[in-house]
């Protein structure tokens, strides 16, 4: 008995040690792997999944990033592909892959092919850092991610430490881009809140406004706070501001009744479309018909299952992207996305698509080459980002500040006859 336990414990101890070792190869192995890669760059794409798996387990970040001469530019992506936020992560993964494929087919960045690898973070900041580290072991030189705000902030801390260029497609909270190596494609939360308040005020849409927001959601409460702050400078009055949380997001009759009693002409909904669709149908049951106004989270409301789209008639929203827009770029993107993934792309997909093209534009401006290490690329990209102008899906003539914020006009659209129409 005693012997047995001793054996078991030593086996367990060695298993633990092996597990710790498993992440670590030696640098020489890694060098060889890289040399093989260089010898046959054409095979890279085909082998990428295998190589990725191997490289993830062989270590030595310096060896991985520096011995990449003549190869490919490695771009990594981080986002939730499993769990409750998977829909956003998958959209980013698919759209970024689509953009990478297109760029590669057209000759890549400065004639260099791009390799793209996406890691799952389950929408958990801790897992997001793990995913980032995995990609770093793989030899990532630039990061498109993370998809969600909380994860982006956690990863930004690491990218700033490593001086890795980070472009988040959809991390909208303020802290996502607080370091100078981080940029974003989407609007920031305060930006959206402010833009909405200004839009309502300047166009004199309503004089009394009610707000229903999700206090447990960073995105929603971020917009709400800025909206309420900006409302003080605008010619309308906030008559009721009611919150709900992720645990109570099915019945909104209380919030709606309060808005109705307060006599609100407009209800501002800085929330995602699933809850908004419930609010719309419950409002119609109550016989309450104010103007509903939302942000980019409402994009997708027309695709909600079992939702009577006639209820959404007259809803206004500020969004950078509408899948049924008529311009050439959007049409091509939506068609290609549908063909490849069998789904209509949402705004996250559009952000990711633009992110990859922004990297291409900045990369060409900066003249990056695959043999540069991530820090040198980051410095070059940091300098190039404010100089580029991008005509993308989420805005024409997009430019970036040194602070990392994009400059683009929020487009207001109104739903009429079941389609988005520009206002």
């Amino acid at each position: 008995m005693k012997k047995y336990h001793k054996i078991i414990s030593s086996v367990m101890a060695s298993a633990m040690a092996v597990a710790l070792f498993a992440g670590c190869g030696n640098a020489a192995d890694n060098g060889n792997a890289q040399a093989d890669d260089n010898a046959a760059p054409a095979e890279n794409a085909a082998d990428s999944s295998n190589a990725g798996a191997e490289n993830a387990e062989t270590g030595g970040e310096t060896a991985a990033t520096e011995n990449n001469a003549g190869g490919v530019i490695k771009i990594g992506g981080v986002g939730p592909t499993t769990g409750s936020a998977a829909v956003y992560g998958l959209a980013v993964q698919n759209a970024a892959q689509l953009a990478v494929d297109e760029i590669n087919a057209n000759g890549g960045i400065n004639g260099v092919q791009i390799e793209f690898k996406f890691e799952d973070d389950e929408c958990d900041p801790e897992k997001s850092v793990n995913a980032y580290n995995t990609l770093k072991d793989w030899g990532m030189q630039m990061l498109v991610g993370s998809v969600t705000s909380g994860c982006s902030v956690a990863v930004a801390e690491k990218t700033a430490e490593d001086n890795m260029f980070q472009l988040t497609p959809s991390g909208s909270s303020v802290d996502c881009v607080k370091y100078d190596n981080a940029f974003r494609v989407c609007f920031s939360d305060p930006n959206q809140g402010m833009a909405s308040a200004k839009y309502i005020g300047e166009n004199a849409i309503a004089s009394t406004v009610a707000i229903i927001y999700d206090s447990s959601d960073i995105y929603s409460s971020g917009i709400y706070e800025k909206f309420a702050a900006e409302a003080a400078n605008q010619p309308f009055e906030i008559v009721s501001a009611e919150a709900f949380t992720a645990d109570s997001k099915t019945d909104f009759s209380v919030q709606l009744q309060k808005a109705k009693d307060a006599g609100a002409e407009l209800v501002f909904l800085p929330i995602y479309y699933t809850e908004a669709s419930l609010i719309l149908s419950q409002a119609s049951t109550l016989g309450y018909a104010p103007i509903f106004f939302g942000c980019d989270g409402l994009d997708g409301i027309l695709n909600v299952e079992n939702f009577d789209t006639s209820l959404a008639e007259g809803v206004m929203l500020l969004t950078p992207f509408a899948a049924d827009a008529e311009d050439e770029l959007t049409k091509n993107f939506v068609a290609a996305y549908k063909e490849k993934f069998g789904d209509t792309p949402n705004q996250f997909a559009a952000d990711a698509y633009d992110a990859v093209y922004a990297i291409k534009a900045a990369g060409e401006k900066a003249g990056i080459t695959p043999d540069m290490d991530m820090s040198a690329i980051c410095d070059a990209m940091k300098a190039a980002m404010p100089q580029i102008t991008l005509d993308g899906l989420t805005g024409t003539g997009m430019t970036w500040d040194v602070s990392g914020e994009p400059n683009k006009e929020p487009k207001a659209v109104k739903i009429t006859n079941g389609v988005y129409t520009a206002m």
Partner: protein
Amino acid sequence: MDKTNSKFKLSKTTKSNLITYLIVIIAYLTVQLLLAGGHMSSLMEGLLVPLCIYVILAVSLNLTVGILGELSLGHAGFMCVGAFSGAFFSKCTQGSMPDMLRFLLALIIGAVVAGVFGILIGIPVLRLKGDYLAIVTLAFGEIIKNLVNVLYIGRDSDGFHFSMKDSISLHLKEDGEVLVNGAQGITGTPHDSSFTIGVLLILLALFIILNLIHSRDGRAIMAIRDNRIAAESVGINITKYKLMAFSISAAIAGVGGVLYAHNLSTLTAQPKNFGYNMSIMILVYVVLGGIGNIRGSIIAAVLLTLLPELLRGLSDYRMLIYAVVLIAMMLLNWSPKAIEWKERFRETYFSGRKTGKSETAQVSQTGKGVK
């Protein structure tokens, strides 16, 4: 090995405890060697502190589940309390005292606050028989998560402002700073956690728990677990000992939370990190490691935290494989057939070298006390 040890006249429990400490120390030294040699991948490097956090949590929960014999489903709630109180303290005092001192104080504050919550929960619930602790801790974890999500605390020249509504109602002045921002949590916590501190805390947690188990108090706690009526009849104060074990367990979880908060720059209370799922995850470490087996908890926490990351090569299938591994491990550890098979296997191969039937108290009692 037996002979060398017997020279020192170490008791069996001491020997077993020393092995546990040694495993931790050897793992630490191995990692330090690898780090010094630059053979550590960034993924592993990034995982070191989370590993320490989960080991601390698993070990502390094992005190409640394995030694006290009560089921707690809200361990993440205590972690959450510790994390937010520690991070709040760090955020308030950042720059006003040396980093190490501040972190040490944050750890103590986290432990104390979580411990106090443990006592508050324990006083009414631990007097009851049955599964009430599981139900109450389950509710506690969820309540704490939701409370933290509506908590707004700001600071300006007038002092602290507090609100449960939104950050605007804090009415901060121009120079004000929002410290706890509701659902957005605390951002910009200093990055103080390191692997060395994590390992020191593991050793401290082990020291406290192992010594408690083998003390007079620990024997009283285990007596309650094994037979409440018998324990009561010999005059053991049931509530006192239950409360002792439970609040120590909560306090150590609070320390794990502080370590967690100082490892990432964002701290938000989401279902993912402080919700029901996390509590269950910690329980899984304890159950798979062997209920009541402290060493097993350490190993299970390490393996199960590493597994999903090492399976990243399988991309989409990794969470599926992870679940299958969990089921397989559970069957292998606990199914009567598997145990029977292991016995037979052992008799076939090790029967000649067996010395006698005796082992550390903790191992032989696994599972017995838990309904």
